[in-house]
């Protein structure tokens, strides 16, 4: 286990990039997932169909395949996802702005894949909102969009927060694939480097390196899990 102490800066840097990747992908997944959920419950049949197809596609193919489609497919289409070079945001998350696109590609792949699960968690939340709520909103003249925005979604979010949390935890773990799909600098790619190329001619064995990587993930996922437990407990107390 000496590797963790000897190469601590490597793991620290890797952890920081994995954290950034997870954070930005979580935001992306929540945004896209909410949009897909709205499509899925839309009164317009073609939109509904689009939402359902999205979920059925992304929920049922391996994440690795999504990564391949994004990492190989986008460049074929001539895109290096420059729309994610968001001014201001790229000052905080400097990897967003650089010319190598793999950080942006990883965000896209993780967001698109996770959005399908976010959509389903949200939809279960929406179904948990009694139909009388939307009906009362309609009866005072709120439009479909206002109804969603002011009445249904705020309540659905509350009901969905625990399942959403599980989705995000899964996504954080899934982000480890990015390091095998072109991204350099996250926990898994830095770990791999220690095993294969090593540092100053010293290579490290696989198992201790991956134990250290796992520790890095636990630092993110365990607190999130504890937070969810608390939210759930609070809710049970309130419901009594």
């Amino acid at each position, binding site marked *: 286990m000496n590797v963790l102490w000897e190469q601590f800066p490597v793991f620290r840097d890797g952890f920081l990039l994995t954290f950034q990747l997870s954070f930005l992908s979580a935001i992306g997944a929540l945004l896209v997932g909410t949009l897909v959920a709205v499509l899925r419950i839309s009164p317009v049949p073609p939109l509904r169909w689009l939402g359902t197809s999205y979920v059925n596609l992304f929920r049922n193919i391996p994440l690795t395949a999504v990564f391949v489609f994004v990492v190989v497919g986008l460049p074929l289409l001539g895109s290096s996802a420059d729309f994610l070079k968001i001014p201001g945001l790229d000052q905080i998350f400097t990897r967003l702005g650089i010319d190598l696109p793999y950080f942006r590609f990883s965000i896209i792949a993780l967001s698109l894949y996770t959005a399908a699960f976010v959509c389903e968690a949200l939809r279960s939340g929406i179904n948990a909102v*009694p139909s*009388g*709520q939307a*009906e*009362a*909103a*309609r*009866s*005072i*003249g*709120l*439009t479909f969009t*206002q109804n969603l925005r*002011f*009445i249904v979604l*705020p*309540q659905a979010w*509350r009901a969905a927060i625990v399942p959403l949390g599980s989705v995000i935890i899964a996504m954080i773990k899934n982000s480890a694939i990015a390091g095998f799909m072109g991204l350099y600098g996250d926990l898994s790619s830095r770990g791999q480097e220690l095993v294969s190329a090593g540092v100053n001619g010293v290579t490290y064995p696989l198992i201790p390196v991956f134990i250290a990587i796992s520790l890095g993930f636990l630092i993110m996922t365990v607190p999130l899990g504890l937070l969810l437990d608390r939210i759930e407990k609070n809710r049970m107390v309130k419901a009594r």
Partner: protein
Amino acid sequence: MAQPLIELNSVNKWFGSLHVLRDVNLTVDRGEVVVVIGPSGSGKSTLCRAINRLETINSGTITFDGQPLPAEGRALARLRADVGMVFQSFNLFAHLTILQNVTLGPIKVRGESKANARERAMQLLERVGIANQADKYPAQLSGGQQQRAAIARALAMQPKAMLFDEPTSALDPEMVGEVLEVMTSLAAGGMTMIVVTHEMGFARHAAKRVVFMADGELVEQAAPAEFFGNPQSERAKDFLSKVLQH
């Protein structure tokens, strides 16, 4: 004669093969209070819900304030803003305070200023007797208080008519009175109302007309004294003998 506010012409509605509204004709004048009674499953709720298009109809026409009901979109939303609806189960927005429940419509639908909406909401809550509950959440109120809040929420839209679907049926007996009191004063104030209820006392005293429904049909309608004193149809007689026995 002035145009009626609500007019239903040969309205038919099916749920699958179940014929829930059979050729219903009904007109309600401005300021009129109509009580709808009838056995369970006779289509009273469906009739109410059809008037603000929470339920679509299969044939016939419904006009409100001279206009046929819009099919969908903004026009329909505008119509619904003009028709207040009070539900059996209150349906207050669970994540909003009582005050927010009442101000949401005026602010988001009518584009009223927050201060203005708030002031009117407090007046309305005062009027239904729960101004001191304004900052609580619906779950913290009794059923009677929730239903009065729901009435205030509907009134805040300054509707041209109010629909009540069994507003007191979900209440503990001791809370029925406080809600009926609010409704009675509304009726006295000239609000156009359609009220589905089993409260025969309210029908007798506050209604201008009683409409009796059975099996989706509008069987008979008359002024309360006439209807309760001298029902014409067998079904109404039968229904009244059952209800009034208790």
